[in-house]
């Protein structure tokens, strides 16, 4: 029998802001951008959630719902720093820590029980230490697998500790709505609704042959999950499946020069992160969002696995030119590297590694002096809205990070 913990920091970005600035405590804090900007909410404090402000909501909607909210652009570097501290506390109980994002992780503590006590004991320890040593509140679910641990941690947030004792997985899940299960999206919910299934318990009672007929091989998985079974292991070195960045324009843009320069900017950010993870992309995905939130994604393979911005950009531009209708205003543009691999094809004539070494030097300069310290000349002309002072700079919304998703 395994013992799995799912630990999830409560309202992470917003809580960090309240931690660093005591005047914000008890007030509705909304991270993602200014109230009149066109981005979306990355995180909201529990005080803001009372007004119905949730993640991924447009900032302007949030501003309408919560006029007294404190809107902040976010400080990704600070969030990463605190995330590292929290993850280090997790790692002191088990080497099997699987970070899902900056603010949540799975822990397999099966072999740690002899040294640190049973699952609930370790969970209480972790909650206490994260609060004492970092100053943040974490919710923890304890179960025999990842599925139940994750649902448990989420059940009574904030500051929750929910324990699913061994053997009680199915009865724990039974009263919950089916949307809580992995792999049950709006479509599956509708399909299951046709059978009168709204709770996980009803789903578990359904004949597995019925599910297989309706959902194919996924039917069996669904059936197993509904009964609280999930064999998936906690994987400690979790390589990201995709690395992407996106940009929301202040005003919809149909200007090809502007769109292409933005893609170049995004390609550079994505390539930097590929190099940081020592990965190469095999394909590129372009995302375009238009007025009315209509969203298109298109993808194309790269000639070879790469971590260099140039081929990412070239391929994305090809997709843009095929997809984008002249004159149509774009609200959001995104570039994601997919099909990530640790392999990289070496070349004959472009002096081996020359490009890679140049890129890595640029990465180092940016890490020390900021993103704008060194950039392509083309991007200077195309970004009049960017400020080039050396004080605060508007950073990309942290919610755009698809790392590890």
């Amino acid at each position, binding site marked *: 029998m395994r013992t799995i913990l799912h630990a999830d920091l409560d309202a992470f970005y917003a809580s960090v802001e309240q931690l660093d600035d005591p005047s914000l405590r008890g007030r509705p804090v909304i991270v993602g951008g200014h109230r009149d900007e066109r981005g979306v909410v990355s995180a909201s404090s529990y005080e803001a959630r009372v007004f119905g402000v949730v993640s991924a909501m447009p900032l302007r909607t949030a501003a309408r719902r919560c006029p007294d909210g404190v809107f902040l652009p976010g400080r990704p570097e600070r969030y990463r720093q605190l995330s590292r501290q929290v993850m280090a506390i997790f790692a002191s109980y088990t080497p099997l820590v699987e970070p899902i994002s900056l603010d949540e992780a799975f822990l397999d503590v099966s072999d740690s029980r002899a040294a640190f006590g049973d699952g609930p004991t370790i969970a209480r320890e972790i909650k206490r230490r994260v609060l004492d040593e970092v100053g943040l509140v974490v919710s923890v679910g304890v179960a025999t697998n990842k599925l139940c641990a994750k649902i448990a941690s989420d059940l009574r947030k904030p500051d929750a500790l929910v324990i699913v004792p061994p053997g009680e997985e199915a009865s724990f899940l039974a009263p919950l709505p089916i949307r809580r299960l992995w792999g049950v999206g709006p479509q599956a919910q509708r399909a299951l609704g046709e059978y009168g299934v709204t709770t996980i318990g009803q789903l578990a009672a359904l004949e597995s042959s019925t599910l297989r007929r309706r959902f194919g091989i996924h039917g069996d998985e669904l059936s197993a999950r509904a009964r609280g079974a999930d064999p998936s292991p906690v994987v400690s070195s979790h390589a990201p499946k995709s690395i992407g960045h996106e940009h929301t324009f202040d005003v919809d843009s149909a200007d090809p020069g502007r769109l292409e320069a933005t893609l170049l900017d995004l390609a550079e950010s994505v390539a930097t992160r590929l190099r940081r993870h*020592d990965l190469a992309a*095999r394909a590129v995905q372009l995302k375009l969002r238009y007025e009315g939130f209509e969203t298109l994604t298109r993808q194309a393979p790269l*000639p*070879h*696995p790469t971590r260099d911005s140039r081929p990412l950009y070239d391929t994305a531009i090809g997709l843009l030119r095929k997809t984008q209708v002249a004159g149509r205003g774009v609200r959001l543009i995104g570039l994601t590297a997919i*099909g990530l*691999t*640790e*392999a*990289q*094809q*070496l*070349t*004959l*004539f*472009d002096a081996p590694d020359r490009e890679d070494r140049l890129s890595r030097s640029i990465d180092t300069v940016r890490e020390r002096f900021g993103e704008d310290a060194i950039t392509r000349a083309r991007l200077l002309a195309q970004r009049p809205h960017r400020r080039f002072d050396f004080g605060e700079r508007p950073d990309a919304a942290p919610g755009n990070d698809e790392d590890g998703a």
Partner: protein
Amino acid sequence: MNISVMQENLARGLATVSRAVSSRATLPVLANVLLKTENSGLNLTATNLEIGINCWVPGKVAEEGEITVPAKLLTDLVASLPNQKIDLVLSPKDRTLKLTCGNNRSSIKGIEADEFPVVAAIGETPATSVDARVLREALGEVVFAAASDESRPILTGVLTRLTGDKMTLAAADNYRIAVRTLTLASPVDPEIVIVVPGRSYAELMRILPDAEMPIEITVTPNKSQVLFHVEGIDLVSRLIEGQFPNYEPVIPASHSSRAVIDREAFLAGTRRASIFARDSANIVKIEIGGDDADGAGVAITAHAADVGDNADTVDAAIEGSPTAIAFNARYLIDVLSNLGSEEAALELSGPLAPGVIRGIGKDDYVHVIMPVRTAS
């Protein structure tokens, strides 16, 4: 124009030239084939402005003349006719070509011959000649390595150097390079260095007879076109301008391990591994004399995280220290399936150094593949 030809001869001639017809012609006349009576026969010509092919077909000329007609229409018609005599008669005033063959009578509307671009008017004496069968084999070992994408146009061509009595062919796509030398029938002085489009050489391979006969090579003085002539057929190609990368320094002069392997077995093992490699960037790992190869022979393995593993061990005569390298399987399959020798030698100098493949008993060929850097 009034000429009689045998269906068989005309069909073969049209099949030869039709590959040079533009599929998406910007000029309507480029979708046509030029027919012109010449030397007691019929000269057929097609061009897409990159290459032009000329083929002479014997016939009986009653009246000289020339016309262009849609190539696909004529080729399809002639291919469907019985193997009998075909009479071709041009009615100049309505530019219509009338064909009579057995009980079939057709007429095809054409375009004036003087609208057709001039092809193969090089008129120089040939620089040299080379045996057709040898050239065909050599092109087979080299042309596949030329780049197919146009991001560096020079690499879509094959470097062709004629110097003394040697011809050197080299093709590369930035990840691999193939170099083959062959002997010319007569020495060339001063040397001639041109870059011929890979596509033109692919067509030349197709039309070269598999026989020992000389093929003449002529280059225009301004180095803009090259002409290959063999028994009744001319192929003219434009040349690619620019400097081919200096490949000699990238061909390793030494190696730290070497394996001599049966080419078919090496190819079969690589093909099996590539089935598994489809889901992992097509990467196969080659190990000379390592643990997977039980200290002898060569192991070919593929690993795909969500799929599974595959391993082949091939007997080999090995020298030097055990070493492992990863390649894109496609590059190995390309060279091993085109190499004209029973055994292949694989020479390595470590996991990140270029790998070399040679044919045993063939000092005239070398192939270099750049490895894939992997995490493990």
